[in-house]
């Protein structure tokens, strides 16, 4: 899957670019708002990795389920959770998508089957297997299985949870997509210093799971691979593994002095900025005019603006409600 993917229609190309830009601008705003102490706790940005979520999400339908990590703003945004409710969540306001209980690392949207936002590395993977198991038990619909898509970092692949989950999904032939966001670092630990075998697809093979390695800086390549994998999974092909090779342009979180990598390396990767690459390709092919780009940037900026305004105007949950949501309330459980 390393040949160049042909360009899609103008409309679809714009859609992909727009979605990547929306993530980028949203994340940039988050970084500023963190400095301004509007957002607190841990904050992990997706800048540089936008093509991964964007491409994979194209393959997913509303009936599919998603599990992501603490680096999940972009995933939630593309899933359709409003930027307003995501930003309000990070402000800790009760209008947030998790009512301000979860914060940046725990975005949830049950209606859209977006099941977090998990801050235990590897902790979401078994969950995704279970979401797939439910579908397997219910059997495929006319149109195949709803797919359970799980995003995780390459660092998570050293965890026992990853191994056990891969085996379970493969053994039981579950409709699960394992989407590894290989950004080469787990905090400060480079892949070479965390895995004896750095070809991650070989690990999937050890479970007899089809696995493809994809250029995660090329949104079209990601989209194509994800669609092929999801299509196979949906129609009974069992779980698939995608290694999406990308890079995190920013620090791991807002507390990271980045002592573990050279500036040069970061700069080299920035030359493969997924947004810039895609934009250049579209421009070259005459698929993107200056106006188009301006419109995309304007829409993204407006979305961010609306989100901040919404969050600023959001309200604090009354402290009296502190012990709500520990167990279900009658209306929730009906």
């Amino acid at each position, binding site marked *: 899957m390393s040949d160049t993917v042909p360009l899609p229609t103008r409309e679809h190309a714009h859609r992909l670019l727009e979605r990547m830009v929306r993530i980028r601008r949203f994340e940039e705003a988050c970084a500023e708002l963190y400095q301004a102490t509007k957002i607190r706790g841990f904050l992990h940005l997706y800048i540089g990795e936008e093509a991964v979520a964007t491409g994979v999400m194209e393959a997913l339908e509303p009936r599919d389920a998603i599990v992501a990590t603490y680096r999940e703003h972009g995933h939630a945004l593309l899933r359709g959770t409003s930027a307003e409710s995501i930003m309000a969540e990070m402000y800790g306001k009760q209008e947030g998508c998790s009512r301000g209980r979860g914060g940046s690392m725990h975005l*949830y*949207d049950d209606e859209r089957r977006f099941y977090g936002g998990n801050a235990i590395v590897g902790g979401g993977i078994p*969950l995704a297997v*279970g979401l797939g198991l439910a579908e397997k038990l219910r059997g495929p619909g006319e149109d195949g299985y709803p797919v359970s898509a799980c995003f995780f970092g390459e660092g998570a692949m050293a965890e026992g*949870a990853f191994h056990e989950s891969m085996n379970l999904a493969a053994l039981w032939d579950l409709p699960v997509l394992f989407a590894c966001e290989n950004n080469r670092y787990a905090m400060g630990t480079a892949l070479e210093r965390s895995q004896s075998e750095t070809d991650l697809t070989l690990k999937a093979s050890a479970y007899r799971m089809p696995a493809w390695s994809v250029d995660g800086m090329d949104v079209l390549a990601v989209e194509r691979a994800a669609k092929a994998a999801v299509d196979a999974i949906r129609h009974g092909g069992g779980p698939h593994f995608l290694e999406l090779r990308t890079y995190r342009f920013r620090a791991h979180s807002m507390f990271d002095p980045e002592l573990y990598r050279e500036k040069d390396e970061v700069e080299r990767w920035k030359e493969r900025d997924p947004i810039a690459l895609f934009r250049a390709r579209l421009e070259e092919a005459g698929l993107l005019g200056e106006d188009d780009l301006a419109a995309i940037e304007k829409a993204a900026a407006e979305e961010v603006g609306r989100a901040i305004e919404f969050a600023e105007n959001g309200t604090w949950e009354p402290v009296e409600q502190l012990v709500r949501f520990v167990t*279900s309330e009658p209306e929730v459980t009906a």
Partner: protein
Amino acid sequence: MSEGAATETTRPTETTPATVTLSFREAMRAAMTEAMERDERVFLMGEDVGAYGGCYAVSMGMLDRFGPERVRDTPLSETAFVGAGIGAAMAGMRPIVEVMTVNFSLLALDQILNTAATVLHMSGGQCNVPLVIRMATGAGRQLAAQHSHSLEGWYAHIPGLRILAPATVEDARGMLGPALADPDPVLIFENAALYAMKAEIADPVEVDIAQAAVRRQGRDVSLITYGGSLHKTLSAAETLAEQGIDAEVLDLRVLRPLDDAAINGTVRKTHHAVLVDEGWRSGSLAAEVSARIVEGAFFDLDAPPARVCSEEVPIPYAKHMEEAALPQPDKIVAAVKAVLGADGTEGGDG
């Protein structure tokens, strides 16, 4: 383990509840069978629940009845299959996950604490987890240090979980239904020493999963316990009765949330409490009960609550050493006498 396989009780119709004689093991099996017949969403998953029949033969015969999809053997992967139970529950199923024993549940504790118990809260009330996890617990069978834990007290520390400890055949038969109906995760701890215990019970039977139960009425002292220790405590109460001491025995049944009304109620009545708990003493569930009694009924107490717990030692293999490590009726009797002696009101000839 022979008894596990054979017996299958006839099930009474709903209109004429009959009584049946069941072992604790059979009662658990009957409860699971009933639940799976009633509700397609219910399935059983765990190590060796299928072809082997369950490591304590609880699910013996269920594979034949329900097939391998719904009586699902798992690999040795506690993190993954417990996590998968959570995910399946969130997706609308009603899984019963069997973790063979509490000893192995540590391998799934992250999933239980950081996902099952917290996801409802982290999602601001959106995503509940209607999951039941069953596991055997307890010592007393010479299985040594790694296979003899009583860690239900740890689980009772976790907000978001309901923790059940059936100690009677009736509760073994009746608790699973309401546990599955609970929208949130419920853990059921089955003391392995109880599986062979038999009793005649109504079937089907309705029990609640909210309250403690007085298993013996008494005036002089409240013995508060749960699970496998209930029977040692009842036996101690008999011994005490012979000596003129009238002990009330409270079976906690529900370890989280604790039934404060019942705990304080019995203590207000007897003014003396002895807490019996197979967990290690320091940090035991009995410590929590003691703290609550003092917080709720301090001025009703004639003496400080005493604890009869396991000694603070990994459980040894040798029989005499293991017995010495665990709560036993004679230790309970001695503790009661000490408590009653402490305020000079000791009854009987003890």
